C-alpha cells in the first residue's frame, strides 16, 4: 500500500507545483512547499487516505507556502501579486508537466543540476533519495538543488523551452543505472512516458522507445555475480518481450512521421537487435545502414566507433578494422573495439594485448573485470599450462 501511495504522490507532483506557481508562488518556494506536503502525505496517508488526493496536496502545499512567508510585507507583496494573477482556469495538466520539464532542464543549468532538479520537481523524489542514487552526501545534493532553483528563479518561460535539452536530461538519468533505493532506469522511463504524453514529438517517442528496448534486455546483461554478459552470450529468453513489442510499436509510429533524429535512429538499431532470435540471425546490414543515418545526424565520434563494430559483423572483421583505423585511436573504448575485431579476425595475440590495454582504460569496475577476463581467456589458450582449462570465462 505504502509504495502505491508514493507512486501516486509522485505522479501528482508536477500538477500541484504548477497550481502553486499559477497562484503566484515563486518556483523555489512552491517547490519547497510541495516537498513538505509530500512528506506530510507519506506520513499521514497510510492511516487516513484522502478522498481527493490532488486537492489534499494542493491545500496542504499552499498552506505550507503561506506558512513559509516570513514577514507581513513579503506576504502582502505576494498577495498583491496573487490578486493580479488570473484565476487558474481549466488548463490541461499536460501543459503543467511540459512547463515543469522545460524549467528543470533549462539551458542555464549544468547537466547534473538539471538532472537533480528534474528528479525532484517533476519526479517527486526526495533530496535524500536523489543523493543516494548519485552517491553524494545529502548536504551536497541540498545545495545542488537549491542552486538550481535559484538559477531558474527568474526564468519566465514565455517561449517554448528546448525539448532537446529535456530529452538529453532524461537520457542522462536513464544511463546512470541504479544505486540506492530508487531505480533511476525505471524513473527515467516513467518520466519519458510523462513527457511523451505531454508533447507530440517523434524524437521524444524515439527516446522512450530506446529506453524500453534497452530496459527489456536488462535481466540478461549481467550474471548473478555481477559479471557483464556480452550480447552473443545473453539468454534471450530473459528478454522482456512485451517491453520490446511496446518499444517497437512506439518507434514505428514515430518513424512514419518522417522527422528522423538521433534517438529514433538509436532505437531502430536497438529494435533490430531485440528482434533477432540469435546473434547469427541479426540483420547487420540494416544495422549498418542505421549507423550511417546516425552518423549523418551527429558529430559524436563514438557513433563511428560503434559503426566499425557493425561493419565488422556485416562485411567481416578486416573491413571492420579498416573502418576503425580511420578513427582517432584516443577515443574512449577504441582498444576494446580493436581487440574484438582482431579476435574475430583470428589474431588472438594482438587481441589479448588490446583487451588488457582496454581494461586499463575502462571507466567502470564491471567493464574492467570483463575486459581483463577476455585478455586472460586468450592468454591461457595461448599457454594452457598456466591457467586451468575450465578457466573463469566460458565464452571461448
Amino acid at each position, binding site marked *: 500500500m505504502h509504495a502505491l501511495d508514493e507512486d501516486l504522490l509522485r505522479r501528482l507532483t508536477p500538477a500541484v507545483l504548477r497550481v502553486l506557481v499559477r497562484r503566484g508562488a515563486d518556483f523555489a518556494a512552491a517547490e519547497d512547499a510541495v516537498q513538505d506536503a509530500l512528506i506530510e502525505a507519506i506520513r499521514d496517508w497510510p492511516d487516513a487516505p484522502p478522498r481527493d488526493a490532488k486537492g489534499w496536496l494542493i491545500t496542504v502545499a499552499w498552506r505550507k507556502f503561506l506558512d513559509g512567508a516570513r514577514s507581513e510585507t513579503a506576504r502582502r507583496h505576494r498577495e498583491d501579486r496573487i490578486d493580479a494573477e488570473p484565476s487558474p482556469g481549466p488548463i490541461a495538466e499536460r501543459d503543467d508537466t511540459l512547463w515543469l520539464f522545460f524549467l528543470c532542464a533549462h539551458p542555464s543549468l*549544468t*547537466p*547534473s543540476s538539471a*538532472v*537533480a532538479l528534474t528528479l525532484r520537481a517533476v519526479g517527486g523524489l526526495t533530496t535524500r533519495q536523489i543523493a543516494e542514487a*548519485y*552517491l*553524494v*552526501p545529502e*548536504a*551536497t*545534493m541540498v*545545495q*545542488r*538543488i537549491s*542552486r538550481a532553483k535559484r538559477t531558474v528563479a527568474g526564468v519566465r518561460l514565455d517561449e517554448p523551452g528546448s525539448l532537446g535539452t529535456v530529452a538529453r536530461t532524461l537520457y*542522462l538519468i*536513464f*544511463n*546512470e*543505472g*541504479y*544505486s540506492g533505493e530508487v531505480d533511476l*532506469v525505471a524513473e527515467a522511463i516513467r518520466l519519458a512516458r510523462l513527457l511523451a504524453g505531454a508533447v507530440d514529438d517523434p524524437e521524444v517517442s524515439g527516446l522512450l522507445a530506446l529506453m524500453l528496448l*534497452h530496459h527489456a*534486455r536488462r535481466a540478461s*546483461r*549481467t550474471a548473478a555475480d555481477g559479471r*557483464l554478459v*556480452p*550480447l*552473443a552470450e*545473453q539468454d534471450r529468453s530473459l528478454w522482456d518481450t512485451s517491453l520490446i513489442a511496446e518499444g517497437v510499436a512506439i518507434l514505428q509510429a514515430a518513424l512514419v512521421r518522417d522527422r528522423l533524429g538521433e534517438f529514433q535512429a*538509436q532505437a531502430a*538499431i*536497438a529494435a533490430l*537487435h531485440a528482434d533477432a532470435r540469435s546473434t547469427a540471425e541479426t540483420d547487420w546490414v540494416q*544495422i549498418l545502414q542505421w549507423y550511417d543515418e546516425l552518423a549523418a545526424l551527429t558529430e559524436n565520434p*563514438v557513433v563511428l*566507433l*560503434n559503426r566499425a*563494430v*557493425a561493419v565488422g*559483423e556485416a562485411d567481416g572483421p578486416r573491413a571492420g578494422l579498416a573502418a576503425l583505423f580511420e578513427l582517432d585511436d584516443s577515443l574512449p*573504448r577504441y582498444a*576494446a*573495439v580493436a*581487440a*574484438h575485431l582482431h579476435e574475430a579476425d583470428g589474431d588472438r595475440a594482438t587481441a589479448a594485448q588490446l583487451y588488457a590495454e*582496454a581494461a586499463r582504460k*575502462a*571507466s*567502470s*569496475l*564491471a*567493464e*574492467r573485470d*570483463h*575486459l581483463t577476463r*577476455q585478455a586472460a581467456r586468450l592468454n591461457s589458450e595461448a599457454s594452457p599450462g598456466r591457467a586451468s582449462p575450465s578457466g573463469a570465462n566460458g565464452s571461448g
Partner: protein
Amino acid sequence: MAKYLLLKHYRGAPASVNDVPMDQWTEDEISAHMQHMDAFATRLESTGEFVDSQALSPEGTWVRYDGEGRPPVTDGPFAETKDLIAGWMIIDVDTYERALELAGELSGGPGAGGKPVGEWLELRPLFVPPTTMTEVGEIVGQEQR
C-alpha cells in the same frame, strides 16, 4: 557527473613550486593555508560538488598475510616508503576540465611568504557505477554512457 579523487602527498610527489616545508612557515602562513583548504571544501559543498575529504596521519604500518592460522606479519612503520599520502578529497563534477580547474585551485593555496604552494596533486577518476549499455557495447562487453 563524474567523481574524481584529489590526492595530496606528504612525500612522493614532485617538488612544489614554493617548496618550503610547512614547519618553516610562520604561524600566520599556516593559518592562511588551513583557511584556504576549509573555504575550498565549504565552497564545493555549496556548489554541489563536494563528496568527501579526509586527512591521513603520516604514521602507518605495513601488514601482510603469513599463512593459515598465523598472525599477520607487520613490518613496522612505513617510514622508508617513497609515496606517503597526506589526505584526499573526492569531488563530483560535470566535466574533466572542471576537475582540473579545482585541482589547480587547491594546489594554489597560500604557502611560505604568502605565495601559492604550487604542490603537485594526483587527480584520479573513480570508477563509475553500473550503467546502461548500448548494443555494440554489449557485443564487445563494455558499458557505454
